[in-house]
């Protein structure tokens, strides 16, 4: 029944092979067709798989397809096999759905680029890797996808590699991710060591007996896996690569650095939820890092002036939100937010791309303003996404964010402190997003006349994906209406089969306190909404009505503003604490150990040989008679020795 699962990742791979092997030989329409159709086909298959899965009874909602044994080596056995359960079904729909729209959008956005074929080849390779990541049925195959998306991220960030900043950003992303991957690998080793398998089903089945609850090994395994997630999903302290990743083409930022790849960490944590439920300490770390990142990145986002960087910090912050949800054991809320975030953040990035397109490449919002008259569709869809991310009631972001806030407050792993941090982050998010909207689309027109002259709405291939994502940003949240409204939270129940086993482990403690107080939930929701609207109005006051207030606040804040503008000097601190000593150490190894010691030893040996030959060569006179004399002398010696012995 699941024998077509392998086609879902295979189609983009075929697309990659066609576009990648025939670079520079295909006309643009063929490239676009291959690129988009392969992902579109994957989307159709994903929908088919989704409905087939939905048709199954709840307990039986697992489809597995084992293609072949990949590494059969003694007790270590890994298959190339795909697993479709409610969790991966959501993920493949997000990846292929949003991915397809972004492919279509790219047709318009990258139209004038010389590397058109290369771009689509990378994009298809990325889609393939991402699908491998979410469809894998074991940790190792997931790791293959994990590395694949990292590679594509590197290739696409450095897509315009002639630009030094772009190739540097690509390297930075790759190196920072490697630090995380190291943790992921070690985590896998511990799991295999204790469980003897990397297969998800087996690991989740055996983990409760193989590990002791809350023990050191399981905590270490979870924390190490989380290190991988920190790298991939740009959390403190490894978030520094994501803002720089904005050097890549904007659709890439939308696909890789907002909607799909960076959420791989969240997916992995949810996928291993049984393990995490067994390690409450690790969960607490996840929650703390998530909350801290959410707040930290949001404050940086307040003052950035590059339209894409604001969105990048916003992404980091929202990913922190997802980890906060996972950390309080609200895994379905995390995935729910992952999905709605994929919609509205992809839309925001694509909208930003459309703005940049209209502005002839300008990304500084200080040089924009009043754009809503010129690019109406972009403006309206961007506004929809902003409303969604701010959590205005009725929009998708409202439901997912509210779910997380409530869980952070009420779950057995949560606490009011997490709720408060979440709330502050939500307010900051609302503020900086509306600041972005107002500075970009409202107010005085600050661009130069040349740019103004060229202002134009983007082509149809770009605006249609915007509109579709706009609709999704609104309705995407309706699948997960909170229970307190008297509705059924379809989304949570959908994911139940995945999260049930984990929650069974600790059911006594969590469900006793969770799920309860409807009145309190409504009150908190109401307070949140009021405050969010307050933050919106504040942004409106500062950036539309009384623009001089913004300047005054900036001058008042002085030092704080500079610190925020320079991202807390994190890059500089890392440069000083890690990069500089590392470069120093490397230089030491290069100049002293390598050049002096190792090369010195090898060259010394050679020189010793040369020296001794220099001395010994005097024996080789080249004169026959001296050879003969030596020969005769030798014979006399030998014979003499034999006689006199």
């Amino acid at each position, binding site marked *: 029944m699941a024998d077509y699962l392998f086609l879902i990742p295979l189609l983009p791979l075929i697309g990659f092979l066609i576009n990648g092997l025939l670079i520079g030989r295909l006309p643009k329409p063929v490239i676009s067709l291959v690129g988009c159709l392969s992902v579109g086909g994957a989307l159709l298959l994903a929908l088919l798989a989704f409905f087939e899965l939905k048709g199954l009874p709840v307990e039986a909602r697992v489809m597995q397809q084992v293609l072949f044994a990949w590494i059969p080596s003694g007790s270590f056995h890994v298959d190339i096999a795909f697993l479709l359960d409610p969790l991966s079904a959501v993920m493949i729909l997000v990846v292929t759905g949003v991915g397809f729209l972004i492919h279509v959008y790219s047709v318009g956005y990258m139209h004038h680029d010389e590397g058109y074929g290369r771009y689509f080849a990378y994009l298809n390779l990325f889609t393939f890797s991402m699908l491998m990541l979410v469809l894998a049925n074991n940790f190792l195959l997931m790791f293959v996808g994990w590395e694949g998306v990292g590679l594509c991220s590197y290739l696409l960030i450095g897509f315009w590699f002639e630009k030094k900043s772009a190739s540097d950003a690509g390297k930075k992303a790759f190196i920072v991710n490697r630090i995380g991957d190291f943790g992921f690998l070690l985590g896998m080793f511990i799991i295999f060591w204790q469980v003897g398998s990397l297969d998800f089903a087996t690991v989740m089945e055996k983990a409760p007996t193989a590990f002791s609850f809350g023990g050191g090994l399981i905590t270490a395994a979870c924390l190490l896996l989380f290190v991988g997630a920190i790298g991939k999903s740009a959390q403190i302290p490894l978030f520094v690569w994501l803002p720089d990743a904005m050097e890549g083409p904007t659709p890439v930022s939308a696909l890789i650095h907002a909607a799909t790849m960076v959420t791989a960490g969240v997916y992995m944590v949810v996928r291993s939820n049984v393990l995490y439920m067994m390690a409450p300490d690790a969960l607490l770390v996840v929650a703390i890092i998530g909350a801290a990142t959410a707040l930290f990145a949001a404050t940086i986002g307040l003052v950035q002036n590059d339209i894409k960087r604001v969105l990048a910090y916003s992404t980091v912050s929202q990913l922190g939100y997802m980890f906060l949800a996972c950390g309080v054991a609200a895994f379905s809320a995390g995935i729910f937010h992952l999905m709605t975030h994929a919609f509205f953040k992809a839309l925001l990035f694509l909208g930003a791309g459309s703005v940049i397109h209209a502005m002839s490449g300008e990304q500084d919002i200080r040089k924009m303003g009043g754009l809503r008259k010129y690019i109406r569709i972009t403006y309206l869809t961007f506004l929809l996404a902003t409303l969604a991310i701010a959590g205005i009631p009725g929009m998708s972001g409202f439901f997912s964010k509210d779910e997380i806030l409530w869980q952070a407050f009420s779950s057995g792993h949560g606490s009011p402190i997490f709720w408060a941090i979440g709330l502050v982050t939500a307010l900051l998010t609302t503020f900086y997003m509306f600041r972005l909207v107002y500075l970009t689309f409202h107010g005085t027109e600050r661009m130069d006349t040349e740019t103004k002259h060229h202002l134009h709405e983007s082509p149809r291939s770009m605006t249609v994906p915007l509109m579709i994502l706009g609709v999704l940003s609104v309705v995407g949240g309706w699948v997960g209406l909170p229970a307190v409204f008297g509705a059924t939270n379809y989304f949570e129940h959908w994911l139940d089969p995945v999260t049930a086993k984990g929650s069974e482990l600790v059911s006594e403690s969590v469900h006793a306190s969770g799920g309860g107080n409807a009145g309190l939930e409504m009150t908190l929701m109401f307070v949140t909404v009021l405050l969010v609207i307050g933050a919106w109005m504040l942004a409106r006051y500062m950036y539309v009505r009384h623009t001089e207030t913004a300047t005054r606040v900036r001058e008042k804040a002085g030092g704080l503003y500079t610190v925020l503008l320079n991202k807390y000097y994190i890059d500089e601190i890392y440069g000083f604490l890690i990069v500089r000593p590392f470069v120093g150490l490397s230089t030491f190894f290069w100049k002293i150990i390598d050049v002096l010691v190792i090369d010195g030893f090898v060259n010394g040996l050679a020189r010793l040989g040369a020296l001794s030959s220099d001395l010994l060569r*005097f024996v080789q006179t*080249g004169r026959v*008679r001296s050879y003969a004399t030596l020969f005769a002398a030798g014979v006399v010696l030998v014979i003499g020795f034999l006689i006199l012995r």
Partner: protein
Amino acid sequence: MSVPISAYLTLAAVLFGLGTVGVLITRNIIVLFMCIELMLNAANMALIAFSRALNVMDGHVMVFLVMTVAAAEAAVGLGMIITIHRNRETINIDRFDLMKW
């Protein structure tokens, strides 16, 4: 009454010594060659003397072998000497020091 073996061996040793000294001191490559032949024949004489004294044929066979090799060596060696002489206009062995450091 035959000649004692010691006489043959003494003659062979004297001839061999002459040949060796000749090889070591002469500069003329032809003379050097002849000295080598002298040494070979000294060895042959010793072999035949032993063969006769011990009444076995092994020494005779050995001598034939040595003579054949000496003939071949002379042919090749003389050919080389002629070639070298053509190229270098000399047969002074001390001038053939191409292999020198």
